[in-house]
């Protein structure tokens, strides 16, 4: 038999190890997404405004911010976690644990969110912008009353994709001491040859992916109408 149910400690670990791990994965994901969204939105507004197709093109600012964003995006998450550990320690007092993982995860997430959002904002019909200009709307009114309103469904679907992407990243963070489902799958499953344990966690992650996708689609449908 491929799965040795007799030797697995899955059921024994379920209440005290797996359930808290689900909690800490969700905490890491939630806070890194919320913080990433806040910073990402600011960066997206700057990028979309200064873009050559934006409300106030400014190639100097656009290129500088774009360069920084691209540079951060080129770091693999696991390297980023290690690379910025001194910064993490300075910010939250420790470089281990879920609280510490939120810092590099946020750092990795905001450029992705910013780029998705920038693309969504720039996709809005040019004529709607012209119309808003024609009745005297200011650039910030166009950005927040017109572009964000029109781009919202597209922003929501970008965020859904990003959240699922970063669910996978939180498990990577587990490899360097952040805890969460990734760490449990690795230490209690893979390293102890407990396949049932390992795959059980994969299934939990799978359900979480489905849930995020489902919620994302629900919100999308709601805002699309």
């Amino acid at each position: 038999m491929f799965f040795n149910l007799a030797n697995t400690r899955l059921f024994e670990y379920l209440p005290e190890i797996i359930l808290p791990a689900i909690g800490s994965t969700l905490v890491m994901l939630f806070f890194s997404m919320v913080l990433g969204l806040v910073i990402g939105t600011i960066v997206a507004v700057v990028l979309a405004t200064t873009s050559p197709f934006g409300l106030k093109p400014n190639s100097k600012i656009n290129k500088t911010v774009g360069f920084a964003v691209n540079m951060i995006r080129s770091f693999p998450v696991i390297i980023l976690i290690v690379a910025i550990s001194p910064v993490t320690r300075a910010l939250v007092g420790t470089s281990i644990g879920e609280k510490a993982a939120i810092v590099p995860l946020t750092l990795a997430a905001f450029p992705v969110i910013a780029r998705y959002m920038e693309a969504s904002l720039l996709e809005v019909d040019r004529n709607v912008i012209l119309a808003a200009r024609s009745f005297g709307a200011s650039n910030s009114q166009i950005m927040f009353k017109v572009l964000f309103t029109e781009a919202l469904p597209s922003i929501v679907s970008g965020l859904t994709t990003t959240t699922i992407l970063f669910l996978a990243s939180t498990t990577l963070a587990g490899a360097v001491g952040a805890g969460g489902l990734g760490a449990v799958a690795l230490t209690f499953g893979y390293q102890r040859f407990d396949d049932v344990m390992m795959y059980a966690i994969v299934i939990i992650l799978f359900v979480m992916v489905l849930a995020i996708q489902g919620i994302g689609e629900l919100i999308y449908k709601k805002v699309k109408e």
Partner: protein
Amino acid sequence: MIKVQNLCKSYKNSRVLSDINLHVQRGEIFGIVGQSGAGKSTLLRCINGLESFESGKVIVNDTDIAGLNETAMRQFRRKIGMIFQNFALLNRKTVLDNVMLPMECWHYPQVERRKKAEELLALVGLADKLGSLPHELSGGQKQRVAIARALTLEPDILLCDEATSALDPAITQSILELLRDVNRQMGITILMVTHDMAVIKTICTRMAIITGNRIATTGRVSDVFLAEPAELRELVGYKEIYAPAGRSLLRVALRESVGGPASLYELFAFLKGDFSIVSANIEQFESESYGLLYLHVAAEQLEQTVHCCQQHGIECSAYSPESPARGNG
């Protein structure tokens, strides 16, 4: 009202507008026609400052727009409404919210916004669609919403950028009637850009034709159609009629003011029955209508016939179906 003087504009190295002169009077409906890519829309956008230009002047209501800073420009645009070919509505906002948006941007009180928007939507005939989203409306209804939105800030001028080009003829007609009402009842000057001659004929009092980035003709619509300059023929195409060998074609226009049946009788008497009518119809314009007759006469009589017409106040000219601009090639 709107004065454009020696306006020039280029995109990178290509000229879009050269030496444009235009004078639109208060209260009129002025049409600008031209082929696509002739620079009509760009000209329209120069007037409300959506596009910049290199040289020349745009003066609207005695304001030279070149001297406006950003805040003054926004204030200036408040008094100029604009509608577009693809309606440019916010797809995620209801009809009511779309119409209230300009007032929201200018911080009108909530109660006033709603009242004004409801009034205007009733005016354009959409009082029952307040809560609808744009995708639930037909093209004509969307344009009505756009018109209501353009009127919220009580503009003096309404700019229409191919406003009916995406609509079918019957709907176009109803939108044009609405625009005419807006023009007459609210005294709003309308400047419209179109490639549709029917639009020009139906509601415009004066027109300009843009060819090759410059204004080729300006004048009262009926005068321009009567004179039928080469650039107009290029736009509407030419009538494919030919005279048999030894005969010459003549284009005769009978205006209500000068012509009339009496002078036509004089012409026919002069020709002593030696003519045949190839085509005859009545051309209708916003301000007047006239009869247009194509007939052929003996080639050697052509000159005398034209002379006879002039004596009786009939406008007439020799006609050849080839566009004069293209020559015989």
